[in-house]
């Protein structure tokens, strides 16, 4: 019997070799995964204990969003980006001040780092994990006035709504900088400025190389997500506003 199978196999191989097959037709499409597909029960049961453990933590209500906020609801500034930059600056200020005696001038984050929108309604711990899933940590880099100008230039050229706070930028219609003010004043030559950002960006993420060699660097050991959760706990309703901090004329 084994011999016959072997012979048959040889025959098959020869038959295949003779009739070389080529692609005659390709069909390509995408299939939507939605609630019309029944969940596989074995997989579902496997996920369940993992899910329960996490949900216990995640469902805690922390604050309230007055409207849907996402990272494309404005051109150079967005409601969610303004919120992020504002609370990172706000939450970091006392920590930085206590350690160095200095204040934070500017917050700079990156548009790509906002990983989910915030839906109108209750904000939970889950919301903070959705928006900021990364373990990115807050650092404060003290920059020379030259590097501050490079920072502003980067933002002008990026054409993306990278979140900023403490800094207002007006661009001309050709995307050159018309005005850049820190605390209402133009960048002063010879002065240094403190920029609160994430360790990811400070290490050159999103090609923000101007953050890489700061005059001083303070690592706050404070995760952005934890700053967000701490902030949410202090406000009843979060602000959802565009305030003209970054506009094109």
């Amino acid at each position, binding site marked *: 019997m084994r011999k016959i199978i072997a012979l048959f196999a040889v025959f098959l191989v020869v038959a*295949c070799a003779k*009739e*070389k*097959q*080529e*692609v*005659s*037709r*390709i*069909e*390509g*499409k*995408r*299939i*939507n*995964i*939605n*609630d019309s*597909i*029944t*969940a*596989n*029960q*074995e*997989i*579902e049961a*496997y*996920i369940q204990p*993992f*899910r329960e*453990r*996490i949900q216990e*933590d*995640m469902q805690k209500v922390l604050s309230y969003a007055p409207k*849907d906020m*996402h990272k494309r609801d404005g051109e150079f500034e967005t409601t969610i980006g303004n919120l992020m930059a504002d609370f990172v600056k706000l939450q970091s200020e006392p920590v930085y001040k206590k350690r160095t005696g200095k204040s934070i001038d500017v917050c700079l984050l990156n548009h790509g780092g906002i*990983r989910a*929108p915030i*839906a*109108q*309604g209750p904000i939970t711990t*889950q919301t903070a*994990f*959705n928006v900021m*899933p*990364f*373990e990115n940590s807050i650092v404060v880099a003290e920059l020379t006035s030259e590097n501050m100008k490079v920072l502003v230039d980067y933002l002008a050229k990026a*054409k993306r709504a990278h979140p900023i706070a403490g800094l207002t930028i007006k661009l001309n219609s050709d995307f050159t900088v018309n005005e850049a003010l820190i605390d209402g004043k133009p960048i002063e030559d010879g002065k240094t400025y403190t920029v609160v950002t994430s*360790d*990811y960006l400070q*290490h*050159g*993420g*999103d*090609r923000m*190389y101007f953050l890489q060699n700061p005059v001083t660097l303070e690592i706050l050991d404070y995760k952005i997500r934890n700053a967000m959760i701490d902030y949410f706990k202090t406000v009843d309703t979060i602000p959802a506003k565009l305030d003209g901090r970054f506009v094109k004329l």
Partner: protein
Amino acid sequence: MKRRDFIQHSLATSAFVTLGGLSLQSFTASSAKKHITILHTNDVHSHIDPFGANHPRNPNQGGAARRATLVSKIRKENPNTLLLDAGDIFQGTPYFNYYGGELEFKLMSMMKYDLATIGNHDFDNGIDGLYSQLPNANFEFVSANYDFKNTVMDTHVKPYKIFVKDGIKIGIFGLGVKLEGLVDKRMYKETVYHDPIEFAQDMSRILKEEEKCDLVICLSHIGYNYTKNPERPSDLMLARKTKDIDLIIGGHTHTFLKKPTIEKNLNGDSVLVNQVGAYGIYVGRVDFYFDDEKNVIANGKSIIV
């Protein structure tokens, strides 16, 4: 060899019937003709549970357990199916923050994923974090342009893998995105990135000419297309600057293509480029139907998207 390609769009059904009449006949007449199904995901980003009913953008979309149902149904219809992932498996939900990718890899193993490539976010717990989860993955990883020689991942990632399904030889190689400026160096450590286009040219030659593959597939995490930075390597550039690749499965840019893009390669042959956005909201499906070489020469190849 330059072949006639009939490219058809699924909406234009009438055109399909007239044009495809011949090939449709020969196609239905013989059940012996081979059929390979490729299923693919990308940038699932730890989205194990479906989005909630009140999610502003993707209500009730996605979900690993639903994906599993779909995949096993398609596998029942065609056992000659491969399930692939184009990277960024990790990062995006607390499942990753709490369990470091354990559940992602375990579920993909239960769904019998065949192969994956490595995305930039798969380094988010460091290369050691990725390495520590490998025992949970019953599938392999490919990357042709990442050199892991001086890292813990050495020998755990191959440039390509060959599958034989129903006698059809399918060569699949992986490509990763430039890590510098995107991933913290402390995370990827001594991983060396090489130019993906150059390495893809080499891979396609090896798979087509040396390994004699019937199908060559690229599992890419370099991104679909960069209109603002046209010099940056992308899937569309890859399609144009190579030959002998049949399908490029992309990721990284979270591009929700409604249907695969058809590009012309260096030889003027058609290449399919597909990417299904992110978060497991879609599964990409590409079916390759085979016929005797002489019939293909006579009738041409039809592409229906």
